[in-house]
């Protein structure tokens, strides 16, 4: 009930940006009825995950926003493990006004506990530049990832794309090309192996890289996106479907043929990625953060280029299908100055600011048109793939059903260690899904 009262209280403030003539960032909030406006004032606290992209762009946006709203005192802080600091504050009811809690916060638990504000009313107000609604400024495929029961709680910012990587220098030198199909992959792996290089390495200690880099993309390629959607939606039998079984068999085949780097099953993400950047392995499945994550240890001669996971010939899936992910921003329900938090984020996601983030941080953004800048070389293939993708999806299962995901990842490791056959692997996946289905204490979600 408390959450509902707070929601009505916030609704009464009728958050809106008034007039298309307002410059980006000069935020005013309309009073109920929208006839009068009031300036944003007071303290605005922003707490953000200090990851590979640092805090500087958020601090800069906060400073600029503070200058445009002189009665507002903006404070931006962050930490690499910010989720640990935010948990006690959320429990105590003293959260910040705008937060980006990072990849290890259980954001769906926050929604279930009524800790986040639904933001649809704000999204239906004009965008920061006054052109269309704020909602329209986001890529709808990305915006929908933060919705539950038709309400939007999580707002996207940068977009991570998932695929495979190779070194174009090494490939050109050897006359190799990035494989587009699984058949091409098998042929290429044999050639690479003959050169004494491991064809593929992977982050064995974190099996979700392989789940998202091979298992699910291949299942989507074989059975169409419905195969993966059914698995995410816990449809009975979906985790042991023919598509999942065939995808698991393909991984097993690569392993048994010696195309997966020996020992990678015990490697951390940095260990395996170091093998890749040092040329000891030719390809690696990883998200778009790979270049920035490995920047410090990448030899100057090494390059890396993104490509989509090879598809399966004759599969039902659309070959342009692309897996993406977001690390969302949100407004806590107990925020003291939620309007200011919303307006700052509206400013941060304005087209000029989004373009600035793309250029300075070398990442794609969820804001339409933000890639219409001179993209850094490393982003060009990702941007092209995302633009060409007819189907864009995200592995939400991993954040919805963490216990089941852990079981599936464990089973994958056991298959890679030769302790499970592909059939036994998918049976374990299905058992994990079944356990989740039967557990009434676990909230259930649907891919929208």
């Amino acid at each position, binding site marked *: 009930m408390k959450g509902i009262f707070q929601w009505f209280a916030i609704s009464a403030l009728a958050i809106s940006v008034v007039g298309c003539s307002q410059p980006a960032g000069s935020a005013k909030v309309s009073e109920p009825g929208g006839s009068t406006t009031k300036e944003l004032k007071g303290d605005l606290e922003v707490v953000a995950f200090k990851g590979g992209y640092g805090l500087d762009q958020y601090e800069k946006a906060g400073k600029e926003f503070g200058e445009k709203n002189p009665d507002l005192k903006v404070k931006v802080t962050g930490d690499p493990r910010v989720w640990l600091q935010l948990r006690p504050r959320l429990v105590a009811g003293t959260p910040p006004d705008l937060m980006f809690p990072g990849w290890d916060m*259980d954001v769906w638990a926050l929604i279930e*506990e009524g800790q986040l504000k639904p933001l649809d009313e704000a999204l239906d107000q004009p965008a920061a530049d006054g052109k269309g609604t704020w909602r329209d400024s986001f890529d709808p495929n990305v915006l929908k990832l933060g919705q539950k029961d038709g309400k939007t709680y999580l707002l996207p910012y940068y977009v991570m794309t998932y695929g495979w990587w190779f070194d174009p220098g090494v490939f050109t030198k050897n006359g190799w090309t990035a494989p587009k199909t699984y058949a091409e992959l098998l042929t290429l792996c044999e050639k690479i192996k003959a050169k004494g290089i491991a064809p593929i390495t992977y982050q*064995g200690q974190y099996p979700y890289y392989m789940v998202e880099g091979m298992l699910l993309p291949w299942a989507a390629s074989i059975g169409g996106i419905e195969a993966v959607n059914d698995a995410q939606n816990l449809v009975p039998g979906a985790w042991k479907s023919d598509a999942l079984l065939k995808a698991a068999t393909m991984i097993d085949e690569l392993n048994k043929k010696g195309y997966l780097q020996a020992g990678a099953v*015990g490697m951390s993400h940095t260990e395996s990625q170091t093998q890749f950047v040092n040329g000891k392995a030719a390809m690696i499945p990883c998200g778009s953060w790979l270049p920035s994550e490995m920047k410090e240890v990448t030899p100057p001669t090494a390059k890396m280029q993104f490509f989509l996971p090879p598809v399966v010939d004759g599969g039902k899936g659309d070959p342009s299908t692309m897996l993406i992910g977001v690390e969302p921003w949100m407004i806590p329900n107990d925020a003291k100055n939620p309007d200011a938090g919303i307006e700052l984020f509206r400013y941060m996601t304005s087209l000029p600011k989004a373009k600035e983030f793309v250029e300075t941080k070398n990442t794609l953004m969820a804001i339409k048109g933000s890639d219409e800048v001179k993209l850094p070389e490393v982003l060009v293939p990702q941007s092209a793939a995302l633009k060409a993708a007819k189907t864009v999806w995200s592995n939400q299962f991993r954040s919805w059903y963490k216990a089941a995901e852990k079981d599936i990842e464990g089973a994958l490791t056991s298959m890679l260690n030769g302790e499970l056959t592909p059939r036994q692997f998918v049976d374990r996946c299905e058992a994990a899904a079944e356990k989740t289905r039967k557990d009434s204490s676990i909230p259930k979600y649907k891919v929208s």
Partner: protein
Amino acid sequence: MKRTGFIVGFLAPAVLIYLALVLVPLGQALIFSAYQWRGVSAKRKFVGADNFRELAGDHDFLRSVTNNLWLLVGAGVVIIAVSLVVAHLTAAPGKSAKMLRGFSLVPQMVSLVAVAVLWQFIFNPEGLLNATLRGAGLTSWTRTWLGDSHFALAGVGVAFAWYAVGFYALLFGAGLRNIPAEVNEAAELDGSQGWNRFTQITWPMLWSVKRTAITYLVINVMNTFALVFLMTRGGPDRASDTMLTYLYEQAFVNSKFGYATAVAVGNFAVAMILSLAILFFLRRDPTSSQNKAAA
């Protein structure tokens, strides 16, 4: 009366600190374990003993308990054996013994994070251990040590033993120095040497140190977290999961703080039962009973 007030005055600060920092949190843990709580809001739902019922049938938890016990037995035997050898070597007079005493304590001065990283490097498929094996012509022995379900837990155990030996050697060293010189001299006169002297004289005379060391070991092994988390994250496929890594997963990954607290209570119960069992089985000082019998 005055004397009682005097004693209470001295005891009160310690009792209050113990109450605030040990008993109250323990009581809170017991209370939290009766709730379903996601740990992201103040909302909690009372579920009584449901968390413990779930725990009793949770195969993953039982596996983590088994892993803890294997660590205790495997690493424990190695730690006691090696630390006894080191204690004997460092008990001898001379500079080299002093140097060895210093070296044996070096791992204790290193943070557990550094220990984990060091042993990760050693066990890495391209690391020191496999390189040594290859160099010795034993290529077929090379393994993905921490990625292999048969060796991952043992790998963590080796790192733990390397870290812990210095402390237990220090403990046993102090025990050895406490054995009265006349006892050793009498044994020597009776012709007792080497293994015979160790089993008949030294080992029984180390009774109180043994008891302390094993109790410490139980507590340390039951509290193993950082090494496992950093070296294997409990993998592969839970092969090296311990109670505390499982607790962490339940609390901070699955947002099941109530259940995680039940795991903590389970961990406490296992450590307590083992410690009490040790104190029970080692309650009598064999040397003092021999002394009494002799008297």
